[in-house]
């Protein structure tokens, strides 16, 4: 018994009819003028891992779908598709975000970094090295998201406490149960960055 969008708007309008006309006027009378996109594909550009990439996508495409299905960057994983698990985490201007909760076109003009972009001149980032050394992964499906959350933390806070690390990955689910080693790896990577 799914209701269509039109039925929903009708029911809202009906309820709205009970609201004084003046407030209704304020709410609905003058929608801001925005360009309508779609239906159908549109052309956009995204800056991913330092490169400008051209894509042709439907406006409803999420950033996660754009990365995986249009740019062949499959490091970020689809797991819950609603921002509840963190497996799709990427950086947007250095901040960790769930790429499943963001439309690709809203990422235009921002700097996007995925797990594929962490290596520098063929060398793994310290956080990646630390994950390997501490065995902070098992099946590995949460790992790219986990690493991106930890890397974003180190970017903002190079000397985190254990509680800082826990808070940074509080939104990253791991079903194999690698959390203790994720904590250890991140603390070790922070020490290494500090002392070289």
């Amino acid at each position, binding site marked *: 018994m799914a209701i269509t969008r039109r039925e929903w708007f009708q029911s809202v309008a009906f309820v709205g009819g009970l609201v004084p006309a003046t407030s209704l006027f304020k709410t609905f009378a003058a929608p801001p003028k925005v360009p309508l996109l779609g239906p159908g594909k549109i052309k956009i550009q995204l800056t991913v891992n330092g490169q400008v990439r051209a894509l042709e996508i439907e406006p409803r495409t999420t950033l996660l779908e754009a990365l995986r299905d249009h740019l062949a960057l499959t490091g970020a994983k689809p797991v819950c598709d*609603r921002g*509840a698990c963190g497996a799709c985490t990427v950086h947007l201007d250095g901040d960790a975000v769930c790429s499943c909760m963001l439309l690709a076109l809203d990422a235009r003009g921002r700097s996007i970094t995925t797990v594929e972009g962490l290596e520098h001149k063929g060398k793994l980032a310290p956080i990646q090295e630390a994950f390997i*050394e501490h065995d902070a992964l098992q099946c590995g499906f949460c790992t790219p998201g986990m*690493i991106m959350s930890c890397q974003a933390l180190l970017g903002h806070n190079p000397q985190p406490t254990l509680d800082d690390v826990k808070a940074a990955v509080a939104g990253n689910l791991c079903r194999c149960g690698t959390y203790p080693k*994720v904590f250890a790896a991140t603390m070790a990577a922070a020490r290494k960055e500090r002392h070289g």
Partner: protein
Amino acid sequence: MADKIKTTVGWAGHTETREIELPDGEPPPWDANSQLKIVSGRVARVDAPLKVTGRAKYTWDLRFPGLLFARVLRSPYPAAKAAKIDLAKAKAAPGVRAVWSEPAGKKILYQGQEVAAVAAQSLQEAEDALALVEIEWEKAPHATDTESARKKGAPMVFPAESQPPPRRVPSGAEITHDGNLRTIVATVGPDVERAFREAEVIIEGGYRTQVQTHSPLETHGAVARWEGEALTVWTSTQATFGVRDQVAEAFKLPHEKVRVLCDYMGGGFGSKLSGGAYGLIAARLAKDAKAPVQVMLTRHEEHLVAGNRPDSTQWLKLGAKKDGTLVALHLKSYGTAGVGVGAGVAGPMRSLYRIPSIKTEESDVFTNAGAAAPFRAPGHPQGCFSLEQAMDELAERIGMDPIALRKKNLKNAVQAAELDRLAHKLGDKWSKRGKAGAGKGAVRRGIGLACGLWYKNVNPQTAVEIVKLADGRYEVRNGAQDIGTGTRTLLAQIAAEELGVPMEKIVVRIGDTSLPHGPASGGSSTAPSLAPAVRAAAFKLKQGGKSANAPRAKEYDALEDQIGGVQAAEVEVDTETGQVRVVRVTAIHDCGRPINRLTSESQINGGIIQGVSYALFENRVLDRNTGQMCNPNFESYKILTANDCPEIDAEIFDVANAGNNTSTAGIGEPTTVPTAAAIANAIYNAIGVRARELPIGPEKILAALRGGK
């Protein structure tokens, strides 16, 4: 000619020499005296660089030219008939290349059952087209919880003659049927009623555990591609060969026409031991579309149809002498595996302690819900939850230390030694723990422990091939999959050790049924099947030649035929809010001679973390009025997060068991068995009342505190 050799078995401070018969061509077992360089060390996973860079390709990540994406339409109702199914509009929708449906009139037994599917050029188009499938439903009465399914006159989920057969029946057991209820009654030793009359102390209690979904992060799914009459299936699986056999049977193909591949997979925990409807749907759609098709479940579908750990309602009676000697055990339990089987919980009751007289009456209650699947030590966390609480009650009643009581009755000598080690590690925390419920203040601390065990399982068809490559490296080949336990690394370590070369010289190829036969990753059998076989192959190759293929390696009488472990939990219980926090878990587990301490530790951590999550948070909730799942997602199906994670001290207890040439046993399953029971015992120590129902949420603590003892 078989040689007789001496081998040293045992653990630190407790070794003995045994004589074994060594067949020709078999290496002598690595024993307590073997000095090894790579095996038993802490070795980083060989595939870790691919996993930390996003380069490891999982089934979700596969992309081929012309790949189609499919979505499955599932029944929203728990019991119904799909009277009419009209695919015409869906078929004509943009991008659609193939459609499939069950025949009209198909009977629906659970919410989420597959009814139709659409393959299109994009997932968005497949989803759009799925909304155009028209179905005329005829709803039927349902029973989704054990209480209503057990009532007289409840709707029958299956007619009695078509109930799925039980998975395991102890020898001599009796099976009875009553509506949706099927009961297996098994006894050990003399009459249990008479034995209870001889008991000096009797402990009796009721317990409940909930349904837990496996929730692997990578949902179930497959990609199917036909080339003529040959079918290739890439799938997220724990059993490449099992899936091959199932697919071959479904499409009436010879085994060699089906190839199943699994390079990387994102967790399974028992739910990915069979192929599933999605794989067959992918293959059917791919055949019709003449193009490869990918079917991956959504998180919602995963919760409904991809398996779960059955719930349980248990009544347990334990009889003992005043000196702690167990004399009798009687269990009555029922639970639901939905339309599947396997709700029994008696495993620990029959195998953990020496009990001369046992009677177990376990019932599967069929309900209109998705089928259960084996879940990390099926039945054991549930059974341990009741048995190990009853043991603590008994210890308190007779005024005996819980460790001493267990040691007196344990079957497994290794486990008794592990209890000593645990007591030593805990020190004053255990020996000077407070009396149950004696603490003061709002937040009370407690400590509790529990034992758990699992069985030694081996796949007898395992074979490993090693080929010397032209560049001087060695390629190790086996068709089994790595489910995240470190199978690739284990194979490389053992081959390198036996061949006397660095690990960089070893290339491992796995996850492909065109390679030699390998085990399903279930029953903690992967390592004990593969480790001796790869060593035997390397041993053979050292005798000369460019390649060697070793079939199943020799099994010897092992020191113990169980793998076990003991865990202690320290908790904080807030008596004002009811919140329980697990502060620390100390665990000692054995897996023979560990191959890789680093990855084995990770498995112990994982088992404990899943156990804490099961004890405190997870719960599949079905609405009994609609029969639909209320929390098919990750925001209301609660899984332990980093913030809830206890500090874990995981120790591996080395046992040279000489059960095979590497002294290897599994470790995946026993690590999650005692956790919930240890937490419940710690809660009792903290507040003086028992938590008899999982998950132990704040409301249960507050209710228990209100109800007193």
